[in-house]
């Protein structure tokens, strides 16, 4: 049933309907509303049986989730920014152990300088952690992706990170159709762990692996991600059948077919990009949008197919690899190495990505006036003063 609620609340209620058995909470903006809402649902008995653990750090949060998952419980936590980095060691561990934990990342910049606003620096820094990464364009999708995330995670026995833009989505109140319990139950079977700490069947989980087998373990991890490229769209299809709406999957092309210029982006900025592109198309500009829902595993084939007809590609991303440029760009290049690609770094540290700016940017792009690496709305006077 559709209701006008905050994104965090929608995610919390959706997660609750996925019946997690252990939820770990450590406060960090902007994910706090999610675990606050879950704590209320657990305290009220609405979500039961479920253990809500107030941990002492994000490192502890992921660790508790690891223990819970290894003991056969459906485990969930949420974090952002510094918190994600603080749990980085445990992230690799969760994926290395093949534990199907689902975590919301309310994307936020990383300090210093400290900044609580949205960009993708946090989750991008963990792109190689072995977690599946899904990026929500809207709050509706954010909610829906969590249901799919548990399915994907448990089918593959891999952890899944659902990324939603901090504040922009988490704190936005919108009309959202929170999946009903019946729907979720029909879609998401109870967790049947593929490995579990069980006194009746003692198992060693997490043995030390030396040079003789580490490569093989990593190879297998990669293979599992490749398998995820099949599982993710299938789950999205099944979701659409059950819930009567489309969300998730690998990529979301929007007017790509026949477009000379395609803007690749992920997250909530896609809405503004689509608005802008619609205007440009109305003015006769041949331009489309490719939203990346799945960033890890990187859907090379899907991206290549979507960009087949494009003459130029603009990758708009909310994170920067200092000394290198675009993070997503590097992966898109892997899909279409022969196409001209420009990178636009936009919206760092919460700077709004406005339609006005985008319009100017895309106009330049279409006219091939864009630098290979452009910083949207960069205050040139400030940086030049510093650089001089």
């Amino acid at each position, binding site marked *: 049933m559709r209701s*006008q609620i905050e994104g965090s609340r929608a995610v919390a209620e959706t997660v609750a309907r996925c019946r997690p058995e252990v939820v770990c909470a450590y406060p960090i903006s902007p994910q706090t509303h999610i675990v606050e809402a879950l704590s209320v649902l657990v305290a009220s008995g609405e979500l039961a049986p479920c253990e809500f653990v107030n941990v002492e750090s994000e490192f502890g949060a992921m660790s508790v989730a690891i223990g819970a998952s290894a003991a056969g419980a459906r485990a969930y936590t949420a974090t952002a920014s510094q918190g994600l980095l603080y749990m980085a060691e445990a992230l690799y561990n969760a994926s290395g152990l093949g534990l199907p934990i689902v975590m919301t990342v309310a994307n936020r910049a990383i300090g210093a300088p400290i900044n609580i606003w949205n960009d993708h620096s946090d989750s991008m820094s963990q792109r190689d952690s072995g977690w599946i990464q899904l990026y929500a364009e*809207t709050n509706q999708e954010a909610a829906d992706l969590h249901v799919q995330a548990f399915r994907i995670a448990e089918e593959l026995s891999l952890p899944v990170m659902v990324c939603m833009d*901090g504040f922009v989505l988490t704190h936005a109140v*919108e009309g959202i159709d929170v999946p009903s319990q019946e729907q979720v139950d029909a879609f998401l079977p109870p967790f049947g762990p593929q490995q579990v700490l069980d006194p009746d069947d003692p198992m060693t989980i997490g043995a030390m692996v030396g040079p003789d087998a580490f490569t093989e373990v990593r190879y297998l991890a990669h293979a599992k991600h490749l398998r995820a490229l099949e599982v993710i769209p299938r789950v999205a299809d099944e979701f659409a059948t059950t819930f009567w709406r489309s969300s998730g999957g690998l990529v979301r092309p929007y007017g790509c077919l026949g477009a000379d210029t395609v803007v690749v982006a992920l997250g909530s900025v896609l*809405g*503004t990009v689509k608005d802008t592109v619609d205007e440009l198309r109305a003015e006769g500009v041949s331009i489309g949008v490719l939203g990346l829902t799945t960033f890890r595993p990187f859907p090379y084939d899907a991206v290549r197919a979507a960009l087949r007809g494009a003459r130029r590609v603009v990758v708009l991303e909310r994170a920067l690899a200092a000394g290198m440029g675009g993070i997503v760009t590097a992966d898109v290049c892997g899909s279409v190495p022969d196409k001209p690609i420009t990178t636009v770094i936009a919206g760092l540290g919460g700077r709004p990505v406005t*339609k006005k700016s985008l319009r100017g940017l895309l106009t330049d792009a279409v006219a091939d006036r864009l630098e290979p690496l452009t910083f949207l709305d960069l205050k040139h006077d400030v940086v030049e003063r510093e650089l001089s």
Partner: protein
Amino acid sequence: MFEVRIHGRGGQGVVTTAELLSVAAFNEGRQAQAFPTFGSERTGAPVVGFCRIADQPIRSHEPIAAPDAVIIQDATLIHQPDVLAGLRADGYLLVNTSRSLAELGLDAVDRPDRVLTVPATELALTHLGRPLPGAVLLGAFAALTAQVRVESVIAAVRERFSGSVATGNVAAVRDAYDLARRSLQEAAHAITD
């Protein structure tokens, strides 16, 4: 698309005001989006809330730079530089005050059909006993902009609050609505006269 920007101070319920407005619109079957300025403002600091209302899905999440309406929950903010920024020439302005526009130094924007003051804090104190003008202002907003019906605002208030807080707010919303209607009618008469 109708875009509203709400200015107030931390602790005055700016976020709630934006949310209530979006819920009121949602209750009328429209698309709505409410969101606050994102930050770590503490009690008393100037804060801004936003609300978009449309009949098509709202995709953009950028802050509202050129609002169709500005609601000022705390008149002491009126001379802050950004408060009226981007407000269209025919945009609406709703100010919570018991003073006149002239007294506030706002003679320049004195467009009686678009600009309205309402003593929302006093109304809130009367009906609620607490100085929370947010919902009250939405009663006046409904009268001023006709973007939402007052009944939708009341429904949103009832969804959000319960007990005496709900009752008090509803009463205050009605009062504010009636007050605003009267002011607007008077202004209309003045223009026709």
